[in-house]
């Protein structure tokens, strides 16, 4: 009776082990069906107990049989989960003990067991220790795996966080890119607008300087026209005189020759002054027209002289009290060079206008004995280049601003009097347009000299 009751204790132990195993291997998740079946593991124990009681069979090995059965049954989930390392370790730990228990049970009451009782006990002890050791190893493996799993989860979480952040970053980048693209587009538009404005400004500057010229041009055309009219009038008179002479019975061949000579000379003069007027009109048209950028063979002496007169008379027409001595040193050996004469003309005009402005300003100071003088000098250089110097004895340029005079929109003139583009454009025309140089030498209160060098 007492012996059979041991099986009930084994049932309790079995339930305890099942509970432990379920938790250890997380059976409800991994093997839900088997897990449910394991819940019924107490039934065979109870049946064994009731059955043995019913038939009156008593054995001190009943609990061992039951335990063996329990262990074999429990080996099943371990086998199924052998890919899980703690499960495999447990299985390896369990197998020797189960085998040994089975062998012991089969050989119970045989002579062999009794003979080697001590050896069997020792062996059983070893297999038991083996099993428990495995249990501990399995536990530590499980803990290790758990740790790894947690780490993986952490990593996964971090990865997901990074992915989220990356997505957010990409969204931001896309947003910024869109803004930047828009800004770039806006800038491009602004640039186009600026370029258009620049072209308009250059044209405006051209027209402004043309405005300065108008009066000068009128004067310059008036003079040659005056000669054309008068020389043709006087020629008509000469012809009348010649006709009278021819009708005269006492013809004076000497006088006739003189009259004819004068007539011829007059016709040449009419032609000369007609050309002069035409050249001025042509120059004016060229000046107002957009530059073709075409280079033509140009005599800088002629060009400088023409624009010097235009600039001078232009200023004179605006301010009748203005006067200046014009000195020209045109080197007759100066050959023609290939330049965009319209552009270089604008540069010269600008330099002359500035020079006149400077001498006028100094004259206003009322220094006794001051003679406003503008000097133009041309000179061929030994290397074939051509130099044009425009010097004035005006107010000079203060040291503080001399570095700025070639900058666009820089002007010392009162608002409305200068566009501030003249020298900047001149600089561009000489340096970029012709590969030459435009230098300035100045002394405040004494005068200024601009030196143009143009390559042949």
């Amino acid at each position, binding site marked *: 009776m007492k012996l059979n009751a041991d099986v009930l204790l084994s049932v309790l132990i079995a339930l305890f082990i099942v509970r432990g195993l379920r938790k250890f291997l997380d059976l409800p998740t991994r093997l839900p069906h088997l897990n449910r079946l394991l819940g019924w593991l107490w039934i065979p124990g109870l049946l064994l107990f009731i059955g043995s009681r019913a038939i009156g069979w008593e054995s001190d090995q009943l609990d061992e049989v039951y335990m063996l059965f329990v262990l074999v049954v429990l080996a099943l989930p371990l086998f199924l989960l052998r890919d899980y390392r703690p499960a495999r370790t447990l299985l390896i730990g369990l197998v020797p003990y189960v085998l040994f228990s089975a062998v012991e049970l089969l050989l119970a009451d045989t002579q062999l067991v009794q003979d080697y009782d001590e050896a069997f006990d020792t062996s059983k002890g070893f297999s038991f220790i083996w099993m428990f050791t495995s249990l501990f190893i399995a536990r530590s493996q499980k803990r290790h795996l758990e740790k790894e799993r947690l780490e993986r989860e952490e990593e996964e979480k971090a990865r997901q966080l990074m992915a989220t952040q990356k997505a957010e970053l990409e969204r931001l980048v896309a947003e910024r890119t869109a803004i930047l693209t828009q800004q770039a587009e806006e800038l491009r538009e602004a640039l186009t607008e600026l370029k258009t404005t620049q072209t308009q400004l250059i044209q405006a500057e051209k027209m402004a300087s043309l405005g300065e010229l108008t009066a000068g041009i*009128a004067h310059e055309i008036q003079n040659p026209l005056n*000669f054309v009219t008068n020389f043709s009038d006087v020629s008509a008179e000469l012809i009348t005189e010649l006709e009278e002479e021819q009708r005269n019975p006492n013809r004076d061949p000497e006088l006739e020759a003189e009259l004819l000579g*004068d007539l011829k000379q007059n016709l040449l003069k009419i032609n000369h002054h007609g050309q002069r007027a035409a050249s001025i009109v042509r120059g004016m048209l060229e000046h107002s027209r957009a530059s073709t950028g075409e280079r033509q063979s140009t005599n800088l002496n002629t060009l400088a002289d023409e624009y010097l007169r235009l600039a001078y008379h232009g200023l004179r027409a605006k301010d*009748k009290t203005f*006067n200046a001595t014009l000195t020209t040193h045109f080197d007759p050996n100066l050959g023609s060079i290939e330049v965009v004469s319209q552009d270089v003309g604008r540069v010269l005009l600008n330099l002359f206008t500035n020079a006149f402005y400077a001498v006028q300003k100094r004259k206003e100071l009322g220094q006794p004995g001051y003679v406003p003088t503008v000097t133009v000098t041309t000179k061929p250089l030994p290397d074939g280049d051509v130099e044009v110097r425009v010097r004035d004895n005006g107010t000079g340029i203060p040291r503080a601003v001399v570095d700025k005079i070639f900058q666009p929109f820089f002007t010392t003139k009162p608002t409305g009097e200068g566009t501030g583009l003249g020298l900047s454009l001149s600089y561009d025309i000489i340096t970029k347009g012709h590969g030459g140089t435009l230098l300035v030498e100045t002394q405040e209160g004494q005068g200024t000299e601009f030196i143009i060098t143009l390559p042949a």
Partner: protein
Amino acid sequence: MKILVVDDEADVRTLFEQRFRREIRSGLFSFSFAYSGEEALDYLHAHASEVVLILSDINMPGMSGLELLRQIKQEYAAPPPPPSPQVMMITAYGDAESREQALQLGAFDFLTKPVDFAALKDKLLTLASHEN
């Protein structure tokens, strides 16, 4: 009658010599030419009291015609002799301001370019007859 013509245009000489060829030949007028105000003053200093009339352009580089007029009037302001030559201005700018200024400075007359030589000749002849 000696007339000094002041103009920076060189061809003025040819023009005057032809326009007044008969008068020059007959010795009624004699012309001298100066190509700037400064040159004109020099000439006047060298030929004092010879020149009766000066015909001057206003718009010349260096000393302008008006400046020349002012200087002549200053130099010959105080009578007795030498008597001041008459100064006649000729200009391409026929504006009222220049005219007024010239007359105020004591210009004898004010002509605009292109010069009407017929009218000029009449004026000169009148002047010559007064002279005589």
